[in-house]
C-alpha cells in the first residue's frame, strides 16, 4: 500500500525539490511506499484532505484544527527554530507611517496563505480595517504582492516574514516595513493521519534523529531546516485554540 504525503501549498519555491528529496529519504528509512502530491492551492488540498486522500502532511497552522478535530490527525514534528510571522509592508514612497493611518477602502495585496493572512489582518485592526471595508487583491506569490506595491496597485501588502526577507535587496529598498509580527507560537507542523498512525512513534523517532547523520542533515538542508523537534498533542491543541481565538 502506498500512502499519500502532501505539503502546505505555501512552501517556498526554493524548497520544492527538497520536499521530493525528503520523501525519497522517508521511503528509504521506513521501507514504505509514500507518494508526494503537491497541490497548487489550499482549496484543492483541502478537498483531498476531505476525501481522505492524505496520510501525511506538512500542514499550515490554519488547517491544524480541521486535521486534528475532523480527520483524526496527530502532530509529529515541527522544524527547529522556525515560526510563521507576518509583515505589513507599503511602498517606500507611501505617506503612511503607522498602520492606524489607513482608512476604509484600503487596497490590501496578499496571497491565500491562510495563517499569514489572518496575522496580517490582525495587524491592520488598529486602523479598523477588516474584510468588509477593505479591498483584497489576491496574488499567487509573494513576489506578486511586492509587484502590486511597487506598481502602486495596492496600498499595503501582507507578507510571510521569511518570503519578504528573501526578496532581493533592490526590491526591498523600494518598500517600507510598518509592522513585523512577533508571535512565535504559530508554526507549520508535520502531521500523521489515522491510516499511518500505527507507525507514528517510529516515524517521529526517525525525524527527530534526522540531524544525527550526514545524509539526514543534507536532506534537511534542502528543506531549509536544521532539524525537527517533536510536537506534543497539547502543544498542537494550544496552537489550535490560539488560531481559534485569532479568527474571532
Amino acid at each position, binding site marked *: 500500500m502506498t500512502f499519500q504525503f502532501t505539503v502546505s501549498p505555501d512552501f517556498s519555491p526554493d524548497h520544492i525539490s527538497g520536499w521530493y528529496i525528503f520523501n525519497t529519504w522517508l521511503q528509504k528509512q521506513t521501507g514504505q511506499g509514500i507518494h508526494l502530491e503537491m497541490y497548487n492551492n489550499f482549496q484543492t488540498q483541502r478537498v483531498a484532505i476531505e476525501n481522505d486522500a492524505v496520510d501525511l502532511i506538512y500542514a499550515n497552522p490554519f488547517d491544524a484544527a480541521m486535521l486534528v478535530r475532523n480527520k483524526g490527525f496527530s502532530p509529529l514534528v515541527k522544524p527547529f527554530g522556525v515560526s510563521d510571522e507576518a509583515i505589513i509592508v507599503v511602498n517606500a514612497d507611501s505617506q503612511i507611517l503607522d*498602520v*492606524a493611518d489607513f482608512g476604509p477602502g484600503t487596497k490590501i495585496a496578499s496571497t491565500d496563505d491562510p495563517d499569514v493572512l489572518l496575522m496580517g489582518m*490582525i*495587524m491592520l*485592526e*488598529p*486602523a*479598523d480595517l477588516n474584510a468588509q471595508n477593505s479591498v483584497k487583491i489576491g496574488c499567487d506569490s509573494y513576489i506578486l504582492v511586492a509587484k502590486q506595491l511597487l506598481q502602486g496597485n495596492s496600498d499595503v501588502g501582507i507578507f510571510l516574514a521569511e518570503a519578504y526577507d528573501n526578496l532581493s535587496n533592490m526590491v526591498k529598498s523600494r518598500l517600507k516595513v*510598518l*509592522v*513585523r*509580527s*512577533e*508571535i*512565535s*507560537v504559530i508554526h507549520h507542523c508535520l502531521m500523521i493521519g489515522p491510516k499511518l498512525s500505527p507507525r507514528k512513534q517510529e516515524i517521529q523517532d526517525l525525524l527527530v534523529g534526522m540531524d544525527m547523520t550526514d545524509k539526514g542533515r543534507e536532506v534537511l538542508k534542502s528543506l531549509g531546516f536544521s532539524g525537527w523537534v517533536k510536537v506534543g498533542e497539547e502543544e498542537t*491543541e*494550544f496552537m489550535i*485554540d*490560539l488560531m*481559534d*481565538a*485569532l479568527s*474571532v
Partner: protein
Amino acid sequence: MLDFKPEDIVGDYKEAVLDLYGGLRRLVFYTEIEIPYPDGKLIVSTTDKNGFITHVNKAFVEMSGYSEDELIGSPHSILRHPDMPSVAFKDLWDTVNRGEHWQGIVKNLRKDGAYYWVKATVIPNIRQGKIVSYTSVRRKPSRTKVEECTKLYASLK
C-alpha cells in the same frame, strides 16, 4: 494577591479598593500614564477553571510589569483596572462558562500604576468535551474602539 506598594508606582497616583471575583479585595494605585500596545505582538495567557494564571508569554510579562513568578498562580484580576466596570467581567465569565468565545476591549492595570488597552479574546479550552482551562489572547485595539469603550465604561460604573 498583594496590595499595591507606593514604591512600585511611577508618577502621581490615585488609589481605589477593588472588590474582585471570589470575595477578594485589593488596594490599587493607578496613574494617568498610558503604555501603548506594542505593534505586532500578542499577549497570551492561560488560566485554570477558577481564573488563576497557569501560563503567560513574554509579551504578557513585559506589558504587565510583573515577573512571571508573580503572575503564575495569581488570579487574572491582578490586571483589573478601577475604570473597568464589573459587569464586563461578569459577561466574560458567563460567556466562557457556556463554552463560547468572549471578545471585548479591556483597560488593564500594570504593576507600576500605568495602564494599557487591549482587544481581548477569551476562549474555553475544551478537551474530551470538557472545559479544562481558558486562554486569553490580546491584540492591539483601534483608537476608535478605545474611545468608544472609555465612554461606555464610564457610564457603567
